[in-house]
């Protein structure tokens, strides 16, 4: 098979970490090559080098067998390499079509500098249609899209570019399952047309179904490259982590106590309606549903980040009103948002400062921050969560998954009575996932009431005591462990839509 793109003996260090050490990888035309590894293993760094966004300290990149010097992402694109970065790279104030054709704009005949808007919309629409993206158009402003929709735009961009090499860094991490399977379908088509695809994912089941070969990174080294059929999922996990992982989910504890939090008839026009539920101390309540079902909106409203129109909430039996996240935190409610980059972290601050940000009053006296106390608490939290990277450096320098761990650390340090996790394991590797579940259980055992919003079916099946399913802003079913079943949850999640179609 023809070699499309390769990294040869690539090494890259950042201050304090060796992100890649002597890594080689060969990507062939017409193959899907999975790149897997724990958080911080160096996957995104390798991709960044292949995409021309980072320069390696040593080693080289070859395109179709010829060594090339990538001095910018623009150069890599001109060599036919299209990359979907882990952190989305769209222009919020341009519309979807302009984003899809950005830097590859179709121009009017005979005037290279003049753009053809019609052609741009046409190209964009073709790509969107191929992805089955129907709930927004080529003219929608990207700022108005949800993160899943933005991910689709990003993928559409790569499709429209029509490059012989496509690199995807966790493209499905924020996609609802329907869109994810559609994407896998397209990846397969592209491969059959001869495109070389490098595919990073933490979803090993996905890797198993889509990849032809897999390269496993651990601590910046290539530990093995193998035909996918020669590896079981267990072996992949073992190579990634360097140890055996037998259980993917910890045992549920059974100490469910008094009602801590109650929501009654929460309604917000256009977002959710009549949402009522309670959570007990020690209980983990799951919220399942499709992305966009209104779960995050409910949680943001409870947390005081958004308003709701009617209904009320109670904490420890007393009705409370929270008008801002600050009041919510003071009352004992913490929320770990799904979108860590926009809502969870100040990327330029150190991970240490990020972790204690919501709990500063506890760590200060007379307005001065107690540095030593902050250091010891955050260091302990970092160890507990297994954060790989320097806590004293800006969170920006952490790998995606490790940033997520910092967000979780921030929630844990806040000493809340009610902790809301919104998609806490998105982009988290298998080993760390287990640790995060274990932490959630440990918190529950300490009497904290926990809400877990998740679109990950195995997670929603195996972590919570009880699951509420939302669909199109309403509650559409409640299931108690051990009566949880995938079919029941899925059909409830789709129920608002199936009913509508039945009526139409």
């Amino acid at each position, binding site marked *: 098979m023809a070699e499309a793109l390769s990294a040869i003996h690539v090494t890259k260090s950042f201050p304090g970490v060796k992100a890649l050490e002597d890594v080689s990888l060969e990507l062939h035309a017409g193959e899907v090559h999975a790149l897997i590894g724990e958080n911080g293993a160096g996957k995104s760094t390798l991709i960044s080098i292949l*995409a021309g*966004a980072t320069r390696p300290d040593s080693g080289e990149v070859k395109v179709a067998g010829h060594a090339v010097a990538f001095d*910018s*992402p*623009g150069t*890599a*694109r*001109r060599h036919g390499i299209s*990359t979907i*970065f882990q952190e*989305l*790279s*769209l*222009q*919020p*104030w*341009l519309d979807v079509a*302009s984003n899809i054709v*950005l*830097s*590859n*704009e179709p*121009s009017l005949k005979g005037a*290279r*500098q*003049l*753009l053809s*808007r019609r052609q741009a919309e046409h190209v964009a629409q073709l790509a969107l249609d191929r992805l089955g993206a*129907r*709930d*927004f*158009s080529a*003219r*929608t*402003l990207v*700022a*108005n*899209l*949800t993160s899943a929709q933005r991910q689709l735009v990003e993928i559409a961009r790569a499709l429209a570019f029509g490059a012989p090499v496509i690199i995807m860094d966790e493209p499905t991490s924020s996609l609802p399952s329907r869109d994810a399977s559609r994407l896998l379908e397209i990846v397969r088509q592209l491969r059959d047309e001869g495109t070389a695809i490098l595919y990073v994912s933490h979803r090993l089941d996905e890797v198993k179904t889509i990849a032809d070969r897999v390269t496993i990174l651990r601590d910046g080294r290539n530990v093995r490259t193998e035909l996918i059929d020669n590896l079981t999922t267990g072996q992949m996990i073992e190579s990634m982590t360097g140890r055996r992982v037998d259980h993917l989910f910890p045992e549920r504890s059974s100490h469910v106590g008094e009602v801590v939090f109650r929501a009654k008839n929460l309604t917000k026009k*256009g*977002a959710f309606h009549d949402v009522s539920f309670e959570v007990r101390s020690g209980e983990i309540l799951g919220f399942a549903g499709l992305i966009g079902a209104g779960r*995050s*909106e409910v949680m*943001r409203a409870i947390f005081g980040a*958004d*308003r709701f129109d009617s209904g009320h909430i109670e904490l420890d039996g007393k009705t409370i009103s929270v008008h801002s996240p600050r009041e919510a935190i003071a009352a004992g409610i913490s929320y770990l948002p799904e979108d860590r980059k926009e809502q969870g972290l100040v990327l330029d601050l150190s991970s240490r400062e990020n972790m204690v940000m919501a709990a500063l009053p506890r760590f200060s006296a007379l307005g001065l921050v107690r540095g030593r106390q902050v250091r010891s608490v955050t260091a302990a939290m970092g160890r507990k969560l297994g954060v790989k990277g320097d806590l004293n450096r800006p969170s920006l320098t952490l790998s995606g998954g490790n940033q997520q761990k910092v967000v979780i650390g921030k929630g844990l340090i806040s000493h809340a009575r009610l902790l809301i996790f919104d998609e806490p394991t998105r982009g988290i590797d298998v080993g760390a996932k287990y640790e995060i579940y274990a932490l959630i259980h440990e918190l529950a055992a300490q009497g904290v009431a926990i809400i877990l919003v998740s679109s990950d079916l195995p997670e929603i099946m195996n972590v919570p005591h009880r699951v509420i399913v939302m669909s*199109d*802003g*309403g509650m559409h079913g409640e299931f108690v462990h051990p009566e949880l079943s995938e079919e029941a949850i899925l059909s409830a999640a789709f129920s*608002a*839509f199936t009913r*509508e179609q039945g009526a139409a």
Partner: protein
Amino acid sequence: MTPPKSPSQISVVNRLQQLDLRQVGLPLVVILMIVFFTFKSDVFMTPGNFQNVGLQAAAIACVAFGQTFVILTAGLDLSVGATVALVSVVSAMVMNDRGPFVGIVVGLLAGVAVGLVNGLVITRLRVAPFIATLAMLSIVSGVALNLSGGTPVVGLPKSFTSLAYSRLLGIPVPLVLAIAVLILAYAVLRFTRLGRYIYSTGGNSQAARLSGINVRSTQLAAYIICAALAAIGGLILTARVASGQPTLGSDLALTSVAAVVLGGVSLFGGRGSVLGVAVGVVFVTVLANGLNLLGVSSYTQMMVIGVAMILAIAADEFISRKSRTRQNPS
């Protein structure tokens, strides 16, 4: 429960949202202001005053349109006033020697040179735009004062100075020039590759780079365009005052930024339109002119303009927050 919206529905909704208060707000205020001044002053609605406002607006407009390019890339050019002064002095001196045409060309080149230096200092030496252009303001003013010896350059050719007062199709030539610049700026920002790159650089420069856009050349281009348009403004002012003035346009940095921001362009870059800026320019000039006619002192005018800026931006922030909670993208 609402059924999933179809794309056509969505784009209609979108367009309604884009055409929100922000876009009708300032024009509305301008109209109210014109009505107010018409009632309060006998002179305001006369052809003579119109000519006056038009001339005043023309120079400010050119500078503000240039400033728009820079601010759209999330930059800032505080040296536009100094550029105007330099262009004025240089073009006047050359003109007296070599005639109007050469004078104009050399003046424009002087402007472009300032923009080039601004752009290089910002993109190559990585000095923050605020500091870089503030320093350039000092340097360029110094050059202008040195060249002219601190006194106006007088005795400019009639064929040049009369341009300020001649008309094309009944419209003062400077205004025609400003309108041409507006159309050109609009077209560049809207229909060309460079325009997309300018918006992208300001909207999210990291994303722009990863998309394969050369962010630094884009910024460089924006500063050059800004200075070139400021130079046109400088030539208009020079013709009007019929001399090369080393202190010309000292308040233009403030006025141009005011017009750009009032016109709805985000100081964070990436959003806004030069059409809005045109309205901002009209606002600023009509306000100054009207207050002049009412006998309000220029000191008080400065206060009024400052307050207007704060109000406009606060209103903008208020409206965009409203529309954000209404759409609630989450």
